[in-house]
């Protein structure tokens, strides 16, 4: 029985009790969960949450938040001892708090991702040391047959120039909005090998898969992870989306750089995006308010929590997210579902409204938005022609996610919309 199974077993009773308690005490449990989540969060999350939750944060404060987090993270690093290997150093991380990388002698590396697990990267031609803990997943290099089901990681592989190693994907051609995987799928160098919850195990094993990269969605389908592991395919669970800062998310490129022995290239990609984000420090606070939302199939309005990456980006760009202290107690989700009434009373006076077209179908016109609900016609932003939307490409362009900040700034300062990477103005 491995560590996770054991833990899951002993936690079953606790979970059942917790579920019962939920029905008995409702909010109390939710609050406890929120508190425990907050406790588990890093300094960066706390900093960002408070920044987004109070007055519109200044750009400098938002960037400083991630720097403070980096310092805290560096102080807490404790390299795991691995019998037979000598610890050398840890990767210096600037903003990310959802992973650590430790370097050992002879090119061995250990990746530690909270909840996901520990992964020992064994260099080509070397073997995992004897007596290695069963809790550590071994990833044997070279990695040239990767099944990638975490869509946000594709952008990193593209930027690192390692796309040829990703030979299988969990998203078919129609699901990609960025060019690189579409071209690879068209050329046949990459194949669709079934989605994360229903992978084509035969294709994965038949292609000699070296590594499966999954998003945290796999945690809801534990049987898939267990099956892949039983077939000898190590499973790495990406938690990039749990980073609450822009740079934290981009810094995951360093993890993939370490996997592919491309640390220098990863560093450069990160530094480039960091300079883009840091350049925002010169932006003045415009005092403009922004609502970021989408309408889902049950006609509820989906907005972001106040401490999510989007409000953080709006703040960096010199704006203020319209929802000051919006939380989603007891949930890890970045979004919150609101009734139209609740959304209306807060967002009606927003200077800008930005429709999230990453999941829902993008708007064809402002009239399209009004046809979803006539109340939109009353919105200040609609009346003043300040309706924008972000397209699907943004969600999959993790390595360039920083450009959304410059896009927001362009929007807030009345700049040239044609220079935007991911934002577009919705035509009347």
């Amino acid at each position, binding site marked *: 029985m491995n560590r996770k199974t054991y833990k899951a077993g002993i936690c079953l009773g606790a*979970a059942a009790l917790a579920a019962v308690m939920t029905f008995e005490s409702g909010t109390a449990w939710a609050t406890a969960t929120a508190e425990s989540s907050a406790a588990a969060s890093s300094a960066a999350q706390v900093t960002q949450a408070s920044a987004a939750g109070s007055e519109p944060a200044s750009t400098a404060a938002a960037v400083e938040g991630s720097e403070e987090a980096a310092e805290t993270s560096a102080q807490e690093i404790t390299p795991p001892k691995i019998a037979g290997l000598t610890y050398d150093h840890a990767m210096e991380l600037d903003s990310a708090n959802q992973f650590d990388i430790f370097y050992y002698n002879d090119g061995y590396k250990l990746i530690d991702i909270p909840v996901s697990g520990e992964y020992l990267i064994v260099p080509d031609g070397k073997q995992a040391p004897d007596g290695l803990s069963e809790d550590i997943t071994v990833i044997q290099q070279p990695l040239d047959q990767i099944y990638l089901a975490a869509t946000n990681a594709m952008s990193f592989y593209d930027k690192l120039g390692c796309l040829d190693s990703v030979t299988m994907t969990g998203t078919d051609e129609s699901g990609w909005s960025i060019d690189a995987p579409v071209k690879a799928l068209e050329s046949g160098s990459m194949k669709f090998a079934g*989605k994360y919850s229903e992978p*084509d195990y035969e*294709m994965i*094993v038949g292609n000699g898969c070296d590594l499966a990269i999954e998003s945290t*969605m796999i*945690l809801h389908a534990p049987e898939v992870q267990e099956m892949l592991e039983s077939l000898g395919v190590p499973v790495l669970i990406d938690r990039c989306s749990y980073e609450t800062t822009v740079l934290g998310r981009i810094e995951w490129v360093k993890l993939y750089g370490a996997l592919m022995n491309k640390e220098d290239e990863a560093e450069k990609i990160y530094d480039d995006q960091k300079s883009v984000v840091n350049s925002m420090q010169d932006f003045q606070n415009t005092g403009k308010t922004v609502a970021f939302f989408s309408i889902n199939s049950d006609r509820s309005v989906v907005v972001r929590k106040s401490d999510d990456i989007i409000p953080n980006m709006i703040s960096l760009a010199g704006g203020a997210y319209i929802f000051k202290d919006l939380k989603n107690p007891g949930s890890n989700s970045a979004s919150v579902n609101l009734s139209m009434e609740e959304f209306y009373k807060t967002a009606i006076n927003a200077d800008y409204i930005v429709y999230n077209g990453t999941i829902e179908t993008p708007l064809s016109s402002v009239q399209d938005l009004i046809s979803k609900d006539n109340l939109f016609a009353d919105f200040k932003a609609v009346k003043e022609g300040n309706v924008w939307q972000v397209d699907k490409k943004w969600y999959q362009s993790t390595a360039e996610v920083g450009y959304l900040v410059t896009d927001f700034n362009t929007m807030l300062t009345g700049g040239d919309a044609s220079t935007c990477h991911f934002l577009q103005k919705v035509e009347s």
Partner: protein
Amino acid sequence: MPKKDAAAAVEGSYRAENFKRRSRYVLVFAILIFAFITIVVLNINTGSVHISVADVFRILLMKAGDPDNVSIVWGIRLPRIWMAAILGGALALSGFLLQTFFENPIAGPFVLGISSGAKMFVAILMIFFIARFGFMSSWVMIIAAFGGSLVATAFILMVSRSVKNMSALLVAGVMIGYICNAITDFIVTFADDSDIVNLHNWSQGSFNGMKWGNVWMALVVIGVTTFLTFMLSKPISAFQLGEAYAQSMGVNVKRFRILLILFSSILSATVTAFAGPISFVGIAVPFLIKQALGTARPLVVIPATFLGGSVFVMVCDLIARMALAPTELKISTVTSIFGAPIVIFMLIRREKAKR
């Protein structure tokens, strides 16, 4: 000697009838066994990766050959095939027992809320367990689904102590299903989108990713329950002729009913636990088997139903994984699409034959 002639004629007619009936049983079993073997061979030899028949035999008999192909056959295809066979049989048998218990041909684990109970527990687990602990093992989900099914059954049994009318009890079972669904929907209100997507995926059923550990566990639980059910063949036969008749034959009807619903629930709970809810099989297969055999005698119907369920689900699973490969269809989609028209067709044909 006209009396002797008449007796001989009756005996001759009885023998001929008996021979005809037995021949029919033999034919149905022969067809089922042939279909079972054919579909097992087809399943072993079909998949995304082409493996020649000769290689498949070498891998099966000696576990020799290309290591990847050995993993595919032994690690992916075989556990999946056996799980489809075992769980398909169990689901059909569960349906037969429920139909006997309720004296109603539409009774099944889906109709009675047993699947809804499993879904409710899995929803609680997915939404609260993962949010709190970040991860879980597949065994935790299996135990939750099993527990949920049995909780729904316990409610039906509780109601059955006060409600003796089978139609009313059936309605009560349907209501329990509604209550479980309502609680699930209530829990889903607090769920993340990812929880909802995954709960939906689970509730459509799948044999994807079955492991040998699952096979052995299911084999033991279903094997023992099926054997015990088979041992109940005579009381079931007596019960089919009426409660009063069963009592006159010495059957303790109260205890018999509890056993019947308990075995049925264990069977359907095991299926739901390992593969998620699979619709329609529990209703369609017993009906088709009884039609094919021309009898409802448990001694014959129980093994035939199990075999029929295995064949039906294995065929559906083959379609599910190959129709749009590498995208896999949900097993309930296939069982319903292929099962429902067959039953409608059989019903129309039977009504025409009656006229």
